């Protein structure tokens, strides 16, 4: 496996993105957050953990059950899954932008199904930073932002650097008075 290094602020703020954006053209962008670049290797290893045993089982089956076609088929399917994860994941990470604006959070993501969601600061009910065991090893975290909304009531940003997620959470807290509905 790759040697996972924990570098909290390493890839943090790239240069602020100057391209005019639809939802937030006029607003001052305070900071642009990217996903953790090593996220791709996490996804790659994650996919490998599932694909390799499955392909191995297929090989065993093809040897013992005398279905020679199964093995190459499984290998092709497995390889394409890995290739898909790598390509899609790279595009996803490259496209992903999470901008902290003066008045809220603006999340732009997706490769085929793209969405840009704007969450005003005034609407954020609470936030949550989560880390699973593998994520902890890599120093990655997911940030959940909760609003009172019915369909976008819970917005999850997975794959942030832990330090970034905590920083964002602290930034989004505060300035609260009422219940925002």
């Amino acid at each position, binding site marked *: 496996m790759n040697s996972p290094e924990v570098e909290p602020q390493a890839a943090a703020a790239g240069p602020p993105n100057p391209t005019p954006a639809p*939802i*937030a053209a*006029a607003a001052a962008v305070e900071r642009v957050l990217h996903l953790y670049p090593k996220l791709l290797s996490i996804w790659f290893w994650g996919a490998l953990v599932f694909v390799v045993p499955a392909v191995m089982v297929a090989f065993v089956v093809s040897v013992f059950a005398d279905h020679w076609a199964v093995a190459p088929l499984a290998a092709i399917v497995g390889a394409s899954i890995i290739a898909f994860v790598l390509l899609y994941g790279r595009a996803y990470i490259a496209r992903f932008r999470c901008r902290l604006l003066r008045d809220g959070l603006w999340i732009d993501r997706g490769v085929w199904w793209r969405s840009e969601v*704007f969450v005003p600061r005034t609407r954020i009910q609470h936030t949550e930073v989560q880390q699973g065991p593998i994520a902890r090893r890599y120093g990655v975290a997911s940030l959940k932002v909760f609003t009172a*909304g019915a*369909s976008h*009531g819970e917005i999850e940003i997975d794959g942030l650097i832990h330090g970034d997620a905590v920083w964002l959470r602290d930034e989004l807290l505060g300035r609260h008075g009422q*219940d925002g509905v």
Partner: protein
Amino acid sequence: MDKTVSESAPVPASQEPQPPEHRLHPWSWLFALLNQLRAMVLPVIALVVFGRGDSWIWWGLVGAVGIAVYAFVYSYGFRYRIGARELYVRSGIFSRTERHVPYTRIQNIVQKRNLLHRLFGVTELRLESAGGSEPEAVMSVITLEAAAELERVLRHGGGEAGPEDPQLDATTPAWLELGSADLIRLGLLNDRGWVAIGAMAAVFWQFADDGWNPGRQFYRFGSELFGSVSHAVANWSLGIVAGIALVIVLWLLIKLLSMLMTVLSLHGFRLSGNAERLSTEAGLLTRHVASARRDKIQRLIIGESLLARWMGRRWLSCEVAAGTQAEANAEQQAMRLRWLAPIGTESQIHAIADRVVPGLDFARLQWQPLHPQAWRRLFKLTAFWWLLFATVPSLLLFGSWAWIPAAGVIILAWCYARGWARFAAYACDDQFIAFRAGWLHRRWTVAPISKAQTVAISHTPFDRQRGMHTVSVDTAGARYSGIGLSIPYLAIDEAKALAERLRNALPQERP
């Protein structure tokens, strides 16, 4: 029973004299008991009827006595105190819960009075806040005067209220009252009868004997009926006539049931309001009184079915912010303020909508059409899915004749897409965002932009290919997830402009 206790700091005891404690009505234990027993009543009846051994009844009695003691102690121990800024509620037997509920948190006040409540002159009062799945407080039961007093305090204790607001009760002039003609018409329009049939079927199912399969019985009954019909009328055209007659009879039966259900739930419907709150009251046997703060109304929804359109009627409902929808139970949802006008003419509905939401002028909304190619997208999408679901059954049923239903499905999808897109439009001004859509069943949704929780713009590969985007506005407490204020098939520039406009119209600071 252990709920989280208190949000804001309680009022320091030293500064103010403690306001007097109130108790529930002396007969509260009876209502608590009946509430607990309600779940047991049907099984007990079933046991008695189907006679499965006498010992069960004794065990049931022991259980009932236990519940009665519990209900008595619980009701006796329940206390509430009306403070200057918050309500203080103490309840529980073994683990005592003390809650401080700030008045500003309470958004919905719901009262339920069934026949027994009315006999005793008492009411069950629920206080709900925007967050959480449980009501902040349930007072079961208190006298009508105590409930009125609490409602008065809640209105004025909130601090934002003008003290001159008149009391909202039966003496307030109504904004809308439904007569029996309206209810009959509404019964004809809606399909509440299905609910009754479903409930009956459920009861039937539950208490059926183990060896007795209701599904098989029903099937046997049906086949006997059809068998006798087909034997009696060897002529197949007569058979078709009999089938049609059966359908009509069933339809009439459902409509009759619908009327009955409508009268039961909406008899004496009354909408009233003042500067700050709205209140509705309805019900023949069980009266539901729901009230909500006007500034907490998230969206207005107007609906119209084909039948309603022919009769020149629509209905108007609203969504208030309360609880998270997934967690709130069905009973709570049903009791909440929802119907502003269960039925009314177009001008009536518009007038009520304008009156309920200050600043709204529904008739003057500037409706903008969607992308001219919207219908094509919808047609392809609908035809694809309908064909996908229709293909296998029609191939099985009709074999090589399957192209006929397939063609039918495509024509239907075409009609749907054309009709939907012709009617679909959105409107956005400085205060409101609105969307309407539908073919046979039409719906209008209006929300104050200030109530938007998030604004999103999204697109699929098909969208990008055709130069379209979707703009969605999320509000709190949306009952129908998804379709409410999601405006699809907008030209990209238009979508971006709309999203930008919505974003800028959102409140920057908390009020």
